[in-house]
């Protein structure tokens, strides 16, 4: 049997799209709108996550040591601190380092320290806490346990900040999941329906092709290509518009959302996923709609 190559099916798909331009333009517009919403949500969500994560990396707790601990006591304490769940890192800050830091922090008021005879500050272990332990009083639990360890004078951390961070993290995680499910379901629905609507008007054509001896593959292939073309085109258009808006935006307009690297555009991987996912949906939509008309 003679057959045609992929270029033939691409050309046929292009002809199909052009000859039904109104329906296809509508489908394209709908898909583009849906992906604009998805893209925008992703943009906000990803930046928010980065920002909150960066805050999480600065979640710290200071463990002040009693005076006159022997080196072996200190080592034992360090081991216990490190094995405490929720503690990611522990670093010793000697009283001298602490004083130097304090003086640096109080710049302009060095006189205050000149009268100081001996360094009144204690040695301390600075702990970095896993952001998962922010909020829900979990930090407080850790602090209480550590306060009971041998050789610990006092434990201090920013309680309010930690609780706030915990809430933010929860919001970002669950809010993100909720948004993903909601948007995911609607986008699958919108896109597969747009493709189906666009191809529905072609039932007559599909039926006729079968009557004049077309194989299943010959009928199906251009529709699949059309489905993929409409959706990837719609998604690319959405990404393009989003990128345009992003660059037109004044740099500090969305500063409140930005992480340490500033407000970032969608990473390439996410863009590829968005367009590729749409393409898959288009393929599925095309397959479903053609099969409706095939005997």
């Amino acid at each position, binding site marked *: 049997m*003679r*057959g045609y190559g992929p270029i033939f099916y691409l050309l*046929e798909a292009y002809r199909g799209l052009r*000859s039904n331009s109104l329906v296809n333009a509508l489908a394209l517009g709908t898909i583009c709108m849906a992906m604009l919403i998805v893209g925008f949500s992703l943009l906000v969500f990803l930046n928010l996550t980065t920002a909150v994560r960066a805050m999480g990396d600065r979640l710290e707790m200071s463990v002040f040591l009693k005076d006159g601990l022997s080196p072996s006591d200190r080592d034992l304490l360090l081991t216990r601190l490190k094995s405490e769940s929720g503690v990611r890192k522990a670093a010793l800050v000697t009283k001298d380092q602490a004083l130097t830091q304090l003086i640096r922090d109080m710049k302009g008021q060095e006189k205050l320290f000149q009268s100081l005879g001996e360094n009144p500050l204690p040695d301390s272990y600075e702990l970095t806490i896993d952001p998962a332990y922010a909020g829900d009083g979990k930090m407080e639990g850790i602090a209480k346990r550590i306060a009971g360890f041998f050789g610990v004078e006092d434990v201090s951390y920013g309680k309010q900040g930690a609780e706030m961070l915990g809430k933010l993290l929860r919001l970002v995680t669950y809010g993100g999941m909720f948004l993903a499910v909601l948007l995911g379901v609607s986008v699958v629905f919108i896109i597969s329906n747009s493709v189906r609507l666009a191809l529905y008007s072609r039932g007559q054509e599909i039926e006729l092709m079968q*009557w*004049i*001896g*077309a*194989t299943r593959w010959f009928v199906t292939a251009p529709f699949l290509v059309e489905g993929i073309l409409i959706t990837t085109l719609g998604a690319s258009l959405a990404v393009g518009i989003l990128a345009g808006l992003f660059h037109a935006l004044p740099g500090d307009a969305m500063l409140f959302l930005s992480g340490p690297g500033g407000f970032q555009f969608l990473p390439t991987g996410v863009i590829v996923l968005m367009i590729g996912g749409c393409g898959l949906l288009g393929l599925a939509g095309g397959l479903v709609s053609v099969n409706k008309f095939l005997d």
Partner: protein
Amino acid sequence: MIHLYRVNKSYEGIPALREITFSVDKGEFVFLTGPSGAGKTTLLKILFCAERADEGQIIIQGMNTFRLGPSSIPYLRRNMGFVFQDYKLLPHKTVFENIALALKVVGTPYGEIERRALTALKKVGMLNKEHLTPPKLSGGEQQRVAVARSLVNEPQFLLADEPTGNLDPASGQEIFKLFKEINMKGTTVLIATHDWETVRTMQRRIVAMERGRIVSDSRDSQKKPSPAAAVRPGTAS
């Protein structure tokens, strides 16, 4: 070329074809007549594998259609042309594109498509309207394009279901003339119609159906005339 033996077909328990037995030889020109609801369309659809018979043997060009899987149906159809009462041209495609589609469907090399489409259009006298879309043509012209499409792949067998049903008598005559020419070049032709005047004047084999049965066949009556085989005009639907 075509043999049917005791073919039965019913829709939801109501018989549409009963014990149909007849055959068509290569090169024949056959009219299938009978009143509306007699089963003409059903019979053609079965020959075209658009419907499946419930019982009986159907042998087309040596192939038993009962044994054909769905994937071989397209290839069987490529040996048959089909002309519909309502033309079934795609309204958004030009006359040329409508013909070209039939060529593409069977995988005709790109370089041959134009030449062959134009040759077919020339045969039906529609060469000058190749760039128009079907809605801009008269019914007779649309049917001529449809005939060109059914011929473009040079089928051995041409089926037509009420091809003149939507046409005025003069256009109808033109279409029948086309079928006659096609038949003279060797294509077997089977036409379902209740255009009784034409059927009578054209002096070809007539198979009459009524309520799902073949009630007369002019080929048989030539051999052994009997009153029961008298040909009666069908009532128009």
